[in-house]
């Protein structure tokens, strides 16, 4: 913690997921004009699925990441205040941290910035480290009713990151960092860390993180990628929309507590839980909401850290087929059974995976779709084929797609082909991965 305590600190949050889509500049510059004490932004998400973590790549475009970092770096250096980034490059793997660090170094040169202290930390966890712990009898708990981690599951996992709390960020601030690039982090902690470092209570610190992490998602009307500013004191958090067309209202801020969370009252991070069940929301001024009553409950016993793991499933191809004949549409399940049978005939060992999503029927919702009979006059069938090697995956997908064209239906009148192709080919796409998220004690 800092020696001299502040009674009030302000933080700008320019983007709910740095780099995923570019930060809107107008509201960012309006926010920067108020001279915030910190520039904070989270760059991560588990929304993007297990592929980026497994394949060690970003979901965001590098030009968007560079753009968003550059806005923050130039303004924070101009004011000589810290800039803090969490979950570099979507996944927070070591390569993503290195990439962001390189971006910052490049910008410093490009803009001829005065020397500043750049801190960064890694989050990848070595499989062998976990294996040794497990062989020594340590249990690695499953998250969300998953079972505990087994050695077989660990073997199937390609890459693992640990999700940081406030701790490495506070450490970097104590070391005098001007710019911090974090590995995988809880989004709220990117904001809570400087508040705690400045000596304000954990209650307001974690709440400020919770409300600021998604930037303008706590505003109305809806409009992403706009800046918001949080002002934190010992008693309260005030959050203000910076985009001229937006406001932070009781309804928008309370509504945001629910966003992307199973339950609107509790937010879990490494080291404890933010309890929002007694939060009080007030309209402070036209564009500002004031929140009091949040409580941080430190964990009883050993701290738990969330681990995110992603495991390679196979090489993957995709094919697409359109259907317009009403008789074929009516019998689409039979068509798919036929195509599946043709793949099975070619690969009797069954060493592949084949998925059909039928858009126009239940392609979006699958088993959750209440409408069982399609009323569509045309369908798009998306075929996904996975196998250990690319050659097999391609052939599985090709047969699985092309046989929609050769479907054998007893009364079909269109005997020259039962499917329309956008492309008479299948497309290699990202390898398939599966998320194996786990949690452990430290």
């Amino acid at each position, binding site marked *: 913690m800092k020696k001299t305590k502040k009674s009030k600190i302000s933080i700008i949050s320019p983007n709910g997921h740095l780099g995923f889509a570019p930060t809107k500049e107008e509201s960012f510059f309006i926010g920067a004009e108020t001279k915030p004490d910190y520039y904070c932004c989270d760059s991560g998400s*588990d929304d*993007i*699925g297990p592929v980026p973590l497994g394949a060690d790549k970003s979901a965001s475009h590098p030009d968007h990441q560079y753009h968003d970092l550059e806005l923050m770096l130039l303004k924070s250096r101009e004011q000589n205040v810290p800039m803090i980034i969490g979950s570099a490059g979507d996944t927070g793997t070591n390569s993503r941290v290195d990439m962001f660090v390189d971006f910052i170094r490049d910008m410093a040169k490009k803009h001829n910035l005065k020397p500043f202290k750049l801190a960064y930390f890694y989050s990848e966890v070595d499989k062998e480290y976990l294996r040794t712990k497990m062989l020594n009898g340590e249990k690695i708990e499953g*998250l969300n009713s998953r079972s505990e981690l087994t050695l077989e599951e660990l073997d199937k996992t390609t890459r693992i990151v640990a999700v940081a709390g406030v701790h490495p960020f506070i450490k970097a601030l104590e070391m005098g960092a001007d710019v911090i690039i974090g590995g995988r982090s809880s989004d709220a902690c990117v904001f809570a860390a400087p508040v705690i470092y400045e000596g304000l209570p954990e209650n307001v610190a974690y709440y400020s993180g919770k409300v600021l992490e998604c930037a303008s998602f706590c505003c109305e009307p809806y409009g992403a990628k706009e800046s918001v500013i949080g002002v934190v004191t010992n008693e309260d958090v005030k959050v203000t929309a910076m985009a001229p067309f937006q406001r932070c209202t009781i309804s928008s801020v309370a509504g945001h507590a629910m966003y992307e969370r199973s*339950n*609107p009252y509790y937010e879990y991070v490494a080291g404890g839980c933010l309890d929002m069940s007694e939060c009080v929301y007030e309209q402070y001024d036209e564009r500002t909401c004031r929140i009091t009553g949040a409580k941080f409950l430190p964990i009883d016993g050993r701290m738990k850290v969330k681990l995110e793991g992603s495991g390679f499933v196979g090489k993957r191809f995709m094919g697409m087929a359109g259907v317009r004949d009403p008789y074929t549409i009516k019998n689409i399940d039979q068509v798919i059974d036929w195509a599946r049978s043709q793949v099975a005939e070619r690969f009797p060992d069954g060493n592949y995976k084949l998925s059909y*999503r039928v858009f126009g029927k239940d392609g979006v919702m699958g088993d959750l779709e209440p409408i069982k009979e399609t009323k569509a006059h045309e369908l798009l069938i998306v075929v996904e084929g996975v196998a250990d090697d690319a050659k097999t995956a391609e052939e599985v997908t090709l047969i699985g797609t092309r046989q929609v064209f050769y479907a054998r239906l007893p009364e079909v009148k269109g005997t020259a082909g039962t499917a329309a192709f956008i492309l008479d080919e299948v497309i290699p796409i990202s390898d398939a991965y599966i998320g194996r998220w786990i949690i452990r004690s430290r």
Partner: protein
Amino acid sequence: MGKTKLVDLAKTIRSKNAGTDRITFDIIFKEKEKYELVKKSGVLTRETVANLFSIPENRIVDFVEFDPAFAIKFTITRLQPSGSFGEGDVFGCQQYPPLYDIEVPAID
């Protein structure tokens, strides 16, 4: 006694991933009266939601009436983590439309 559809009463009806294993649904009202009407009507419960989506009730892991936001919120488990092989909605954000047509009886 007249009936109104949920889509005509709510300001926001949405779904979204809550982590990789769950999808959460939010039904948010602008007016307290409409929120209270739906809350008291009994048309949105663990049971009605499970029926609508044809899922067992144990797949609904949270069901909350959230007064500060005039909102009803429930969360279901996915059968496999988001972005797995065979995915149809990586972000889970297009699973809400069946809620639109839920009929809410008006209070006389």
